[in-house]
């Protein structure tokens, strides 16, 4: 009996030691888009699981449905996600509608400083109202829209000679938007290795955000502004400025004269397919895909190279990327915050970059070896120095869908003029801001 009692006490003690650990171990779910960096994050998070005892589950949604699915989840107060790597434009709605936990106190108590992250990413991914020190996310994945091209075709002496003869200059990475179009038009319909190839694959998708992300890659270099005075919502003369009209006409000309047939509704996937299948000489896409493209056995390696979105009147790239937030409806907020603390660690950030994620941490970006660490690393740094994002207002979805409609109507459906499309866009956006009580 004594022996039994001793064993029972021993077991009880053992339990009392292990119970706190078990109680603290949570099943966390992280929600994000289904794409290459998500796989890298799964790999990275194994280290967190080993250190914390928490289990990480992942809910990755294909990009075309990501916003729909996740915003539905947030708006209904869903508990599916404890952590969400939400798009940069969601930050306004996330903050104002109470979907995201405000992280200021947590950052202060854990010694996490936003000064340790690239300023453009903190501004875009973390703050609301914009630029104020109110943080609702930690910069998780820096990204911008960039370009990649067939290096082997550009280096081909016959193609180079033909280009020089046609354009009077050497075939090289474009230094301006107009050079970009010129190169794309040169390749359009050209026979290479017995196959007809085309200039470039650009974004024209109608349903979610595609054509807007593509067109802003032309608008920003032309000097596009959303407002005459930041924060005033006075858009007349800014959104439909002469520069904006010129940039929009440029994008339409690009679509009509330098893209493969049938690419009337194309976004990330179609851009990658067009390039990997050898249909196009160049393609636009997010830097997030560049590690995968470089590793591709058929069109990667020494056949591919990358360049930043070329400037025109100024440098400008469309911002992608996301911050990681704790969902306010989660019942495991403490464990979720633990993950954020772990993720903010410079060593974890270095590993994140090495696995294919785009760290926004200064210790990674300012490392002397960073530019040479990947063939696109320098371009990424350059792009992040001149990024511009779409509206991040709580009503961003209405603003985005209005732009999708007006741009697709003009560029793909060939209805009206660029000026008319931008004028209508100003009307639509004005109506949205009036409804919001901001005008």
């Amino acid at each position, binding site marked *: 009996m004594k022996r039994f009692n001793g064993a029972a006490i021993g077991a009880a003690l053992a339990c009392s030691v292990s119970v706190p650990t078990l109680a603290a171990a949570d099943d966390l779910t992280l929600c994000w888009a289904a794409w290459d960096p998500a796989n890298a994050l799964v790999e990275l998070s194994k280290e967190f699981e080993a250190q914390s005892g928490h289990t990480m589950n992942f809910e990755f949604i294909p990009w075309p449905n990501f916003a*729909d699915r996740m915003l539905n989840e947030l708006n209904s107060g869903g508990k599916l996600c404890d952590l969400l790597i939400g798009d940069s434009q969601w930050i306004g709605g996330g903050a104002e509608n109470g979907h995201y936990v405000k992280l200021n106190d947590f950052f202060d108590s854990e010694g996490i400083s936003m000064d340790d992250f690239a300023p453009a990413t903190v501004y875009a991914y973390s703050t609301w109202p914009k630029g104020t020190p109110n943080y609702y996310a930690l910069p998780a994945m820096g990204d911008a829209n960039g370009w990649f091209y067939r290096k082997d075709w550009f280096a081909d002496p016959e193609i180079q000679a033909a280009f020089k003869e046609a354009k009077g200059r050497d075939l090289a990475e474009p230094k301006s938007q107009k050079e970009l179009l010129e190169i794309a038009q040169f390749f359009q319909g050209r026979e290479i290795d017995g196959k007809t190839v085309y200039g470039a694959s650009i974004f024209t998708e109608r349903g979610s955000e595609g054509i807007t992300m593509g067109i802003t890659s032309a608008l920003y270099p032309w000097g596009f502004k959303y407002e005459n005075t930041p924060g005033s919502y006075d858009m007349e003369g800014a959104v439909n400025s002469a520069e904006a009209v010129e940039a929009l006409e440029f994008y339409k000309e690009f679509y009509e004269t330098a893209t493969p047939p*049938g690419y*009337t*509704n194309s976004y990330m996937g179609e851009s990658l397919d067009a390039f990997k299948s050898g249909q196009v000489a160049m393609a636009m896409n997010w830097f997030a895909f560049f590690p995968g493209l470089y590793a591709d056995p058929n069109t990667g390696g020494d056949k591919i190279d990358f360049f930043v979105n070329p400037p025109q009147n100024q440098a400008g790239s469309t911002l992608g990327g996301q911050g990681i937030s704790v969902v306010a409806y989660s019942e495991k907020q403490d464990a979720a915050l633990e993950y954020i603390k772990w993720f903010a660690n410079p060593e974890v950030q270095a590993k994140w970059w090495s696995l294919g994620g785009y760290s926004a941490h200064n210790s990674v970006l300012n490392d002397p070896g960073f530019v040479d660490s990947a063939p696109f690393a320098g371009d990424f740094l350059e792009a992040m120095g001149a990024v511009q994002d779409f509206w991040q207002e*709580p009503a961003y979805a*209405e603003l985005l*869908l209005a732009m999708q*409609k007006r741009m*697709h109507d003009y560029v793909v459906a060939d209805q009206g003029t660029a000026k008319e499309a931008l004028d209508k866009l100003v009307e639509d956006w004005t109506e949205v801001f009036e409804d919001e009580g901001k005008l």
Partner: protein
Amino acid sequence: MTDSLANQAAQATPPRVARKIRGFSDRAIAWIFVAPTIFLLLAINIFPLIWTIQLSFTNFKANRLNREPEFIGLRNYERILTDSDIWLNMQATAHFLFWTITLQVLIGFALAWLIHRNFKGSNFWTTVIVLPMMLSPAVVGNFWKFLYQPQIGLFNYIVTFFTGGEASSFEMLGSVNLAPWSIVIVDTWMWTPFVMLICLAGLRSIPDYIYEAAEVDRASKLRQFFTITIPMVLPFLMLAVLFRGIENFKMFDLVVQLTGGGPGSTTELTSINLKREAFEKWRTGYASAYAIILFVTVFGLASIYVKALNKVKER
């Protein structure tokens, strides 16, 4: 037999329950049986409808629960009915409805007429013809998207095989002129078998003796067709038109898969537009007003149509 069953049921009823039931009138018992159905109908149909009507007079947004909705009267209705873009969506829907129904009725009836001949292998061909409507609209949409692909698609290849020229010289889904027809073609391909089956039922319901009497009267085949076949199949045909009309008025999945409403807004049917307003822009009040307008339109048209259908049946 019925009586003995009733007796058995009465005997099997526990005395306490039987005493209670005996206190109810027939009408009360009928209400007890009907009540669950009525409650369910109120809960899942009538209550949401009333709530939607109420929301349609507000600026409520389902993603802004922390903002108090304001009563804005008929503003949403006024906005919708004066919005030229919405009228373009209505036109696109009307084009889609008119041509899909016309083609499906013509082809469906022709196919039913042929199948009704009872030739060798007619059952096999019936099965083959009805296959498309057994597929999921999402699958059909993706499948046809590939067929319409201008560089590798079979559709362009077949067309240019007969007409000459480059297969990639036209884009079914990317052209403003062709995209509305591309969705009509796919819907016709998928749903003509449904109309065919209904017509076939109609044709098979016509007794042979009517044709035999017509033969005796030396009526020509054409005369028999117009005075016997068409009038007797007409109620079936009208029913098929009603079903397809209601289905196509709310068409969503197939068109979203094929064109996403593009190019531009050329194939943005009202249901696609409504979904965007309600669940992408989250303009709940506005979308409620939009839904009410569509509901009244469909309900009104369907009521007129059903009256016409009943008149045809009575003849």
